[in-house]
């Protein structure tokens, strides 16, 4: 139920727009995040972007894991 998928913003029209991943395009509502921008990755849950994905943190986590 709490499943959420990282998807890239491809279109923004106010609070609404589209996100995409692996050739899939999906309608999304951006009213729960501030200033959505095309190209950013967001976490999509039940049609809403609920949070941004932070690339810097993702890379840091992977570095920590590689350095173990």
């Amino acid at each position, binding site marked *: *139920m709490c499943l959420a998928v990282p998807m890239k913003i491809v279109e923004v029209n106010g609070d609404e727009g589209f996100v995409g991943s692996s050739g899939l395009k999906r309608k999304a509502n951006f009213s729960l995040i501030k200033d959505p921008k095309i190209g950013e990755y967001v976490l999509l849950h*039940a049609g809403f972007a609920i949070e941004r994905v932070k690339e810097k943190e993702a890379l840091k986590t992977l570095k920590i*894991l590689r350095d*173990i």
Partner: protein
Amino acid sequence: MKYVDEFRNRRLIDKVAGEIRRAADPKRTYNIMEVCGTHTMSIFRFGLRSLLPENIRLISGPGCPVCVTPNEYIDKAIAIANMKNVIVATFGDMLKVPGSYSSLEKEKAKTADIRIVYSSLDALDLAKKHPNKEVVFLGIGFETTAPTVAQSVIIAGKSAVENYSVLCGHKTMPEVMEALVKDGPSAGSGPVLSKAAHGMSAASKDGSIKVDAFLLPGHVSAIIGLKPYGFLSKIYKKRCVVSGFEPLDIMQAILMIIRQARPEVEIQYKRIIEKNGNPLAKKSIKNVFEKCPSVWRGIGCVKNSGLKIRKSYGAFDAELRFKPRIKKTRDNTRCFCGYILKGLKTPYDCPSFARGCTPENPIGACMVSSEGTCAAYYKYGKDTLKPR
């Protein structure tokens, strides 16, 4: 898929597994509860249990919203679905959940107009498309889903969609976790584990729950942040790590739990989680909902663990609008869901598991939901896994 494939890297998973084996104290047992159903599915799907030493035990918790939705809610949804001129819109997982006397799936097969939707906004669109019908969305889920449903109510209010309402069954995680760590088997007002029901489980001989640490739910935490869990480490001395859902996330979170020098709440899922959560989502929840006592299937009533629609949005409250009347609810006594949701038993302990209770013919909700503990054990473990 970006941010998914990197966190499924087999070589790195093996590396972390090796480090877990080195870091874990062989003289003690680590009982770690994964609270969220999405974690449970991921742990099974990627076979993570097999990578862990014997003394690290993963215990599934109450974090599957479909599983903890009580019969009373299903009975009310069915009563509304059978009213004239009503369309009930729901997430697909809810269809097969058995109520006291029927399920939404069975009612749909008769005459009820029940539609599966992916989002509350799809239900709102249905209401716009069918202005002469009443569209009722079944609002279930934890803090991850609650703001999305709150937004649908706010949007319905702004765009004057008067034929849309929500049957609110939302629940919140920290309160039920407190009930579990504080009261153990007697958490809530549900059944207490009888002596005869003891066996292989996370419960100790005196019936108290023995969870040393929690893998905290990543997406609930994306909304609420860390603060609501503070009591777990400060008062109850439980080690806590907010974890993502890919196999590397979960393995790293387990390593972080083992390495904690003293109990605290840490974040593994840093690419998503902000310490204070998502302020817009929290505000949305607060605007539309207020806290209330809530009944959890198998656990019973837990204070402040539910959300109900505020009076200011009362026009969108399906319970007020339709006042569904239901017969006395009844529970199936052959089902161990209550014990399983509390982490006191595993599906292997249930007399009905795979013998009468299957995903095709579920007796309990834990076998219905794709994220239910019994469904996970059935799909991935019924033939190959030994009870641990």
